[in-house]
C-alpha cells in the first residue's frame, strides 16, 4: 500500500546498499533484508529495502500473462 519500487543492488556496505533504478542511484538501508546479495532486486520503500524480489515468480507471472493473452481467442 505504499510506494515501493524495484531496485537493483549494486554494492553492499554493512547495513547500507547502493541500489539503482533506471539509471538513478541511491543509498538505502538493508536493515530489513540483511540476506540480500549484489545483483538481487529489492523493493525500495522510504529509503529501505523491504523485500527481495522473487525473479522466478516474476518470470512465472509474465508467462501466465502471455498465456492468457495467447489463449484470448476463446
Amino acid at each position, binding site marked *: 500500500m*505504499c*510506494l515501493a519500487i524495484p531496485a537493483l543492488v549494486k554494492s553492499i556496505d554493512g547495513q547500507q546498499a547502493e541500489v539503482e533504478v*533506471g*539509471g538513478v*542511484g541511491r543509498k538505502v538501508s538493508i536493515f530489513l533484508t540483511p540476506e540480500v546479495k549484489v545483483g538481487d532486486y529489492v523493493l525500495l520503500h522510504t529509503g529501505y529495502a523491504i523485500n527481495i524480489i522473487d525473479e522466478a515468480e516474476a518470470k512465472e507471472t509474465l508467462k501466465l500473462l502471455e498465456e492468457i493473452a495467447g489463449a484470448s481467442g476463446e
Partner: protein
Amino acid sequence: MEDRILLAHGSGGKLSHDLVEKNFVPLFKNSLLDKLDDSAVFELSGQLAFTTDSYVVTPIFFPGGDIGRLAVCGTVNDLAMSGAKPLYLSISLVIEEGFPLADLRKIMTSVQEAADEAEVKVVTGDTKVVNRGSADKLFINTAGIGVIPPGVDISGANAQPGDKVILSGSIGEHGIAVLSQREGFKFSLPIESDCAPLGKLVAEMLEASKKIHCLRDPTRGGLASTLNEFAQQSRVGIRIEEEKIPVQDAVRAACELLGFDPLYVACEGRLVAVVPPSEAEEVCTRMRRNQYGTHSAIIGEVVAEHAGRVVMKTSLGASRVIDMLVGELLPRIC
C-alpha cells in the same frame, strides 16, 4: 581583492564600481553597457515584446546549469514565446553579504555565455548587497526586450479545433536535476537540466510557417499546466497521447522514486507549439534540425469537445483528465 561580497560592494562607492568595472563589464563587452550611463539608450522599431522574471532557484548550481544561465534563458524564452527575436537584457543582482566572489564570477560567466549563445546583449544592470540572512545567497532579475516580426500573431488564446500540438523534446529534466541537488534527495543522477535559449529554434519555426498559433515553454507546473493554460485561454479541449510524450528513462525512474508525474515537472529548454494541421509536419521537421528540438514530436491535437480540459489517452487505451498542477509537488510515501 576580497574573496567575499561585502555590503560595501552594493553601496555605489569605489568597491561597487570596481566590482562592476573589473568583473562584469569586461565579460559583456558591448558598446551600450560600456558607456555605464544610468540607462542604455537605443532605437528600435516594430512591434516590441517586453518581459521580466526573477530567479530564486536553489541550489544555485545544479547539473547542466546555474542560476546565471537560467536567468538568461528564462527571459530570452519568454520573449521567444511571443515570436519575438530577443535583443537586449537587463540584469539585477541582489547578493547576500558574504557570498563568495569566485561563485559570483562563475555565475556571471554563465550569464555571458548564455547571452552569447542566445545572441542577446546585456546592456544595463544593477547590484545590491543585503545583510547576511536577508537573502538566500543570490537572487537575479532579468528583463528583456525583443522585436516581433510582422505577420506573427502568437497567443495562448489562438488555438483552434483541428490544430496539432507539438512538443520540442523530452520533459522533466530541469526539475529533477534541481531536486537531485537539494538536501535530502541525494541521488547520483545522470540527469542534466535542459536549460537552453530557444530564440533560434523559434525563428526557424517561423521560417517554416508564420501561422503558428500558440507557443509556450512548460516551466513551473510542467507540460500539463501549459496545456491547461492553452485549453482555458482558447476555450478548447486538448487531447494528447501518453505514448507520444518523450521522457528520458532516468527521469521516469527518478519520478517513480519521488512519486512525481513527469507531466508536472518543470522544463527550462522546451516549448509547446500549437499549429494548424497543414503546417504541423513541416514545422516539426524543421524543429528536429535544431539542436534543442531533435526529439520534437506531435503529441496531440486541439478539439472542440470538453473545452478548457486536457485529456490524455493512456497506453491501455483509456482516457484520463490531466489537470493543472495544484500546490507544490510533494513526495509521496504511501
